[in-house]
């Protein structure tokens, strides 16, 4: 029985770790959809790009921390440029146009990665200092890096919450989610808000890619594997809601993890059933604003 309990605890940790990875990725997806009204399927491409830039830094023998910072700096520049050139004009287009264009961006991004780094699968080792295991009691160990993923997720979550709750720009962002036109009419520079939200969301996606890289592998198209569950998180949590993204991420991570153990035959379906059931009861998502239009 003890054995079973320990195992259950490990699976819960696994669920949290997956959930926090989804969370870091989904915050941006949710805010961009909430504030700009843009469905960004290419979100996974920035996740992939973050991982590859981090890899390139390590290959150039740049220390890990500097590699992370350099990758994020490059992503900031790229996200700002793409917001001004591509995504800003998508705000007033239909969702179909947005989906078509951002899907095209996925294809371009995968092709560019293939051209630069080739189709070969690459991987990053966990830095030595973080590669050990920690005891979680009952003679069981858990990989340190995996626990850190959850810790990083919590830190990111709290930071974003503080930003949104206590800064002027955070309040403008929340107002933008609630009613974009009214916010604009009140004199808020919507273009600036959208630029910042987009840049911030994309940086978080790239950061998720960097954090995931040592656990997973790098290959053209790696972004699509996380995109589908993240879209589910956004719908489930409610557009533009940080609390919603958090709860939904952990829920999806947990249901996927536990479902695979207890109902292996249905593991791919369970999560969709749960999401469908919740959306039936709350069409606006767990923490979404009530749809009034």
């Amino acid at each position: 029985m003890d054995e079973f309990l320990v195992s259950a605890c490990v699976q819960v940790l696994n669920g949290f770790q997956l959930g926090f990875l989804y969370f870091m990725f989904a915050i941006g997806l949710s805010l961009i959809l909430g504030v700009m009204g843009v469905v960004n399927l290419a979100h996974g491409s920035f996740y992939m790009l973050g991982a590859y830039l981090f890899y390139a830094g390590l290959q150039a023998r740049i220390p890990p921390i500097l590699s992370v910072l350099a990758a994020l700096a490059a992503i900031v520049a790229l996200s700002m440029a793409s917001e001004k050139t591509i995504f800003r004009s998508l705000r007033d287009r239909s969702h179909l146009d947005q989906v078509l264009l951002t899907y095209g961006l996925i294809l371009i991004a995968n092709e560019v990665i293939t051209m630069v780094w080739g189709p070969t699968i690459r991987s990053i080792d966990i830095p030595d200092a973080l590669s050990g295991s920690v005891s979680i009691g009952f003679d069981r160990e858990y990989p340190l890096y995996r626990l850190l993923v959850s810790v990083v997720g919590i830190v990111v979550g709290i930071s974003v919450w503080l930003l949104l709750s206590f800064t002027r720009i955070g309040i403008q962002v929340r107002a933008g989610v609630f009613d974009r036109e009214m916010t604009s009419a009140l004199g808020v520079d919507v273009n600036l808000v959208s630029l910042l939200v987009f840049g911030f969301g994309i940086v978080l996606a790239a950061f998720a890619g960097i954090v995931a890289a040592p656990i997973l592998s790098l290959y053209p198209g790696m972004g699509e594997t996380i995109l589908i569950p993240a879209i589910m998180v956004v719908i489930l949590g409610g557009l533009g809601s940080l609390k919603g993204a958090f709860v939904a991420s952990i829920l999806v991570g947990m249901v996927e993890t536990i479902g695979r153990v207890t109902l292996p035959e249905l593991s791919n379906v369970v999560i969709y059933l749960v999401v469908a059931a919740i959306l039936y009861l709350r069409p606006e998502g767990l923490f979404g604003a009530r749809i009034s239009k």
Partner: protein
Amino acid sequence: MFTISRRGFLAAGSVAAAGSIIPNVYPAWAATPLKLGLILPFSSVYAKLGEEIAQGLELALAEEGGTVAGRSVEVIKQDTEVNPKTAIQGANRLVKQEAVDFLVGPVSSAVAAAIRNVAHNGRTHLIVANAGHDGLSQGLCSPFIYRTSFSNWQVSAPMGTWMYKQGIRRVMLAASNYAGGTLMLKHFSESFQEAGGEIAGEVLPDLKEIQYAPFLEQIRNSGAEAVFCFFAGNAAVEFVKQYSQFGLHGNIPLYGCGFLTTSDVRPAQGEASEGIRTTLHYAETLDNPQNTAFRQAFQDRYGSAPSLYAVQGYDSGRAIVEALKTTDGNTEDKEALSRALDGIALDSPRGRMAFSRNHDPVQDIYVLEVQNGQNVVIDTAAKSLTTPTTDCTL
């Protein structure tokens, strides 16, 4: 690269002219180039494999000086995009419009199954250079289809017998959840259970899984002495890495089909791949003169080390060359061409290779172990292995 030379063209013209006056003196096929239709993935996930197969094949032709039994060679490349529908159209074009003498391809089993009838009904020889679909040498076998790679059964079943011989009695199974993966597990289970072994259970992560942790926890709790698995590509990298990160590496030995640690994934797996044992029909480190010469020639020509896929492409080329030497360049008489292929015995980089009655390679299956980042042959799991001819009436 293989186009008709001007002199060849003049010769062809004069032969054609002569042929109209004195019929049946010089066979028509002797003047036309040998047309090879490569039906391979040149884009999408298997692009690298398609490229290596094509390179191996071209190396085999170049070693003949670009002509086979007096005929120049024309290679036509057709991208399958790993999509059965695209592949059927492409294969049809090659067979009907281009009237190729041979099809060489595909990588994916689904594509192989899709183009099987194009080759069979079109009476055009298909040399399968990778796809391991068991049916191609069983229920779907054809007088015109030969395989130079492997059948799924060949790379999974021998491990069951071999592991039992090593004293392993209880094994946990793991594979990506799709037809190819579960089939490999089935072949392994049958041979392992037949030998007397016991299966502790199985886990089937999704093909696009990113979280192997829950499955690894089940493997840890299974009480199995070893794990047999089938993963390929990025799944192989992620499974092996996470297996090590969760401390299973070294505690529960990992065994699998050779694709778990082939040269396309092993560098990315790093330390985590050390000690993994797999069954496969080739290893880079095989110590025989053909392999040494082949690896050197490939490296010189393309500037990169050849993988298993290059060997399969190379042997496809060798098989075509040898068959045409037997028929003296004749590709019109399809039955004679099949008889020529039946009689082939190749000194391949993998060792001796011939075709069985159901047109699969008769080959040794090696047991490989990753040592210092290299697959080293530690034993031979099966000598001159042929795939069972179940439902094949050839």
